[in-house]
């Protein structure tokens, strides 16, 4: 059993996670902190648990690596029941990133990253190579950083090391608890983008906890909006949640300006661009791959109703405000229809 387990968990690509009626009751409490949550997370996807503080999202996440023992229910990683595994060995194979980062101040950056590989008894040479590889992966020059101590790094650099350390033994899944919550907004944005870039190569299965809905939209392949007791109010893609929130609680969490937020989800691709327009003074430009929100922002700022989309210094298309408005009215019609439909069926949970 454990032989098979190890082989499974060591493979770097993601493994699915399945929660079945997982419950956590703290002694002396009448209400369950986490109440019978069931959820399936596919291999290689980022599922964001989002909800107000105290809703049990962190508790739910921490039960997956058994930092908190479930009171009842089952958790499977791949085919393995988590409760049947040695908890220490289980955790060595799950990346763990937290808001406080928790780098060990008495160890060098290299030693911090090497911690799990060392516990797994990797060879010295392999560890040293892995450390340099990971430093390069998170955009920090190995020669510059490996011998430094954490306090010699900025907050953003420290959190990069936190991510590198979690990736050290190439775990199939990662648990991330508000990983970018402690850095300034600009650094946060950059770290989020970098991490999404990394994830495209790595394809880890990631459970990501945040209370920031905008971050959830940005990071999640799917979002689980949780209410008290870790009850799932809605589990769906960001687009779906923005378009048709399941109930008032979710709508409240999505907040105002859902349409504006959904613009951030839409990346500019060649297929849906209008034909290029000629260069004119003051005409705004955005790179291919930027979001529609960036495009609208550029238009609003410059006062033009069209923005040139650039690729390698050349315009490959444009986005027109009039097209967006036309699309908006269509989407609004769809959304109204969808809402009318759900009202007819009558959702019992709301």
């Amino acid at each position, binding site marked *: 059993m454990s032989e098979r387990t190890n082989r499974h968990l060591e493979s770097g690509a993601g493994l699915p996670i399945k929660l079945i009626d997982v419950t956590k009751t703290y002694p002396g409490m009448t209400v369950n902190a986490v109440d019978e949550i069931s959820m399936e997370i596919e291999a290689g996807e980022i599922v964001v648990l989002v909800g107000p503080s105290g809703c049990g999202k962190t508790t739910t996440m921490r039960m997956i690596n058994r930092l908190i023992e479930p009171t009842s229910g089952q958790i499977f990683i791949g085919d393995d029941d988590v409760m049947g595994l040695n908890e220490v060995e289980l955790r060595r194979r799950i990346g763990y990133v937290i808001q406080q980062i928790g*780098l060990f101040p008495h160890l060098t950056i290299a030693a911090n990253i090497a*911690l*799990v590989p060392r516990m797994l008894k990797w060879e010295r040479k392999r560890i040293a190579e892995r450390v*340099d590889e990971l430093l390069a992966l998170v955009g920090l020059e190995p020669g*510059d950083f490996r011998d430094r101590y954490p306090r010699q790094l900025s907050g953003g650099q420290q959190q990069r090391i936190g991510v590198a350390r979690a990736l050290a033994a190439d775990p199939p899944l990662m648990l991330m608890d508000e990983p970018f919550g402690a850095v300034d907004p600009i650094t946060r944005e950059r770290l989020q983008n970098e991490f999404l870039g990394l994830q495209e190569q790595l394809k880890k299965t990631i459970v990501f906890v945040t209370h920031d809905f905008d971050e959830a939209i940005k990071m999640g392949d799917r979002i689980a909006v949780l209410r008290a007791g870790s009850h799932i109010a809605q589990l769906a893609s960001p687009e779906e949640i923005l378009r048709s929130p399941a109930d008032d609680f979710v709508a409240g969490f999505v907040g105002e300006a859902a349409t504006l937020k959904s613009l951030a989800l839409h990346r500019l691709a060649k297929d849906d661009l209008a034909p290029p327009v000629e260069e004119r003074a003051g005409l705004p430009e955005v790179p291919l791959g930027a979001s529609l929100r960036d495009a609208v922002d550029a238009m609003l700022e410059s006062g033009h109703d069209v923005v040139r989309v650039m690729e390698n210094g050349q315009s490959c298309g444009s986005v027109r405000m009039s097209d967006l408005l036309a699309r908006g009215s269509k989407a609004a019609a769809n959304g109204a229809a969808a809402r009318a439909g759900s009202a007819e069926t009558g959702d019992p949970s709301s």
Partner: protein
Amino acid sequence: MVDPSITPPTETTRPGRTAAVSPERPRLFTWRDFVIPLVVAAAVGAEVYYLNTADLSKIVEAQMTFDRIMDSTVEHIQLALAVTGLVLAIAIPLGVAVTRVRWLEPVALLVANTGQAVPSIGLVAIVALLWDIGFWPVVVALTLFAVLPVLRNTIVGLDQIDLGIKDAARGMGMSPSGVLFRVELPLAVPVIAAGARTALVLAVATIPIGYFVGAGGLGDQLMQGIKLSRNQQMFAAALFVACLALILDWLGGVVERLLTPAGIR
């Protein structure tokens, strides 16, 4: 594909880079660290000069030979180190236990507080009555007396460690003993060591009362001086005890710095 064994990437980026980092590292010792030993040496030198040149009574001269003072000093150091060693051996494991089993804390602190609250001379007398006189009974009595600072500092030193660090350690799959020995204790070294130095100074300064139960050390010279109103002898012994406390505390500071991991120095 390039064979990685021919050009290890770790070497290519190295030259010059590491040198840029090293100036940020503070130097371990500066001239300020040697002020105390110099002052102590000057005080001892002056006193020795005085004893050699002053017009001392025959009895004092006979009592305060170089050999006798050296023997007393060595005894004093042995007592102090024995007390401190015993204190560390008791207080650190106890402090660790207390931070793991929280209900132990009031019990342990009560015992340690009592040990310090009871007059030390009373402790020495009680242990002598119950057990024996001599070196070890005094060591045991003074250990009870000096255990509190190390116990308290061990608890504080372990408690003050950032929760995120402990959470990360556990979450990465360190065993409980791994978290203790590789994360918590190294990070608590400065605080525990400060407590150990306090215990050491307490021991050095309190050992003279062991004179009453035949412990040896500089207490013999000091108490004789007091009892027989030999002021020169009393002053010399008191000065040597004080200098010994200062110099042992300084040495403790050196050890503390050597034990403190470089990253948190």
